[in-house]
């Protein structure tokens, strides 16, 4: 596993993950609110955008965590 050492990268990732989660939760809150039509009109896109962003951010975190993005650079480290 690859460690994410850079603090700035960590902070950026944290906010990258926080924003879609906030979008997702506020989307659900709007969707189930008593504001009948506007709630659905705004809530549903927010939920979808939030979910898609969560998937992409998580994918970014996973690729950094597994080192998938720079596997070729790590070729020398492999003990055959």
């Amino acid at each position: 596993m690859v460690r994410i050492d850079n603090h700035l990268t960590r902070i950026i990732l944290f906010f990258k993950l926080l924003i879609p989660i906030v979008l997702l939760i506020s989307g659900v809150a709007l969707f189930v609110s008593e504001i009948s039509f506007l709630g659905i009109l705004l809530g549903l896109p927010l939920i979808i955008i939030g979910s898609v962003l969560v998937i992409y951010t998580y994918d970014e975190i996973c690729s950094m965590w597994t080192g998938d993005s720079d596997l070729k650079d790590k070729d020398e480290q492999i003990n055959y």
Partner: protein
Amino acid sequence: MKVNVLLSLITAFFIVGFSLFYIFAVNITRLLMTEQTYRKGELIAKSESRLIETFLEYTVNSLLFLSRDFSIASEKEPMQEVLNEYIRDWEETPVVGVARFDSEGHILFTANNIGVSDNRLTEFVFSDRDYFVWASEASEGEFYFGNPFIPRVGITKHGYMIPLSTPVFSDGEFDGVLLVLVSLSEMTKVFISDLHVSPNHRVFLFYSDGTVLISYPENENITGVNVLEYISENSYPESENTLSLLEGLIESNDPGKLDLILPFGEKQPARFLVSHFPVVYDGEHWSLVVAVPESDINTELHTLKTLKIFMLSFCIFMVLALSLVSVLIIRISRKNAYFNGLKDGKNGKN
């Protein structure tokens, strides 16, 4: 990248599906609950109106039976005892008083089951009352079912009474009148207060001209008031529509259901789901109305909606969790596949 697009599309598809199902579930629940409330209201209105009709019929039969009793007709027996016995039999029922008038309209004997004793009763002459006038010209075995009225003496604090009277004959000659008073307020307690549709439901018994005979929960400001005049004088948005629908309801001989904005909300006019059933007896036509405030349904719906919100959130969470697990599996698989391929390449495998 392509995998992410695919996962995003699948997630979005499921989320839209769950959301549409949620909207459908909430709306269908509201519709079903409204329909159920109407049905419960109809059932209660029907059973209460039938109870009132049956009770009135039974009371009239007992009155006729009493009038035929020799001791009452001839005055040879201790009539007061007979009346006391009669009223004891009707204890805890809407029959609150019985009186025996002579042929001139003076009260000879009277008994009631609410402990009221009014000495002024003997001073009055009741020969001008509609129940007495009718009975003085009626034949034996006929009865009078009068309009509800509030007595001026005697049982005055119990609101509207229905007078039931029948003539008493002695040796074929008119010898007076026997009167039974049925309290509408007691009728509310006995027949209406125990049947509940919702926590804040209202029950009204409208006279054929729109006068509120019974109002449950009891409200002295409404009882005795003509509801049509009341709404005309205290207009509010949609009161015109309510007025025309209410007129139709009061005149109708058929049961039905209506969605009305009535001026009987807690603070202001509110929307009510109204079920009504006619009470028909001896030519009299009343309407028994069960009204459930829409806010009661919303309260019940709120509980169910909370459960649905949890279910929707859980479904979205599950879809998202599956997508994220897939992302993780794909990333790990890719890494392993890369290492295996690299290893095989170094070992000269194809």
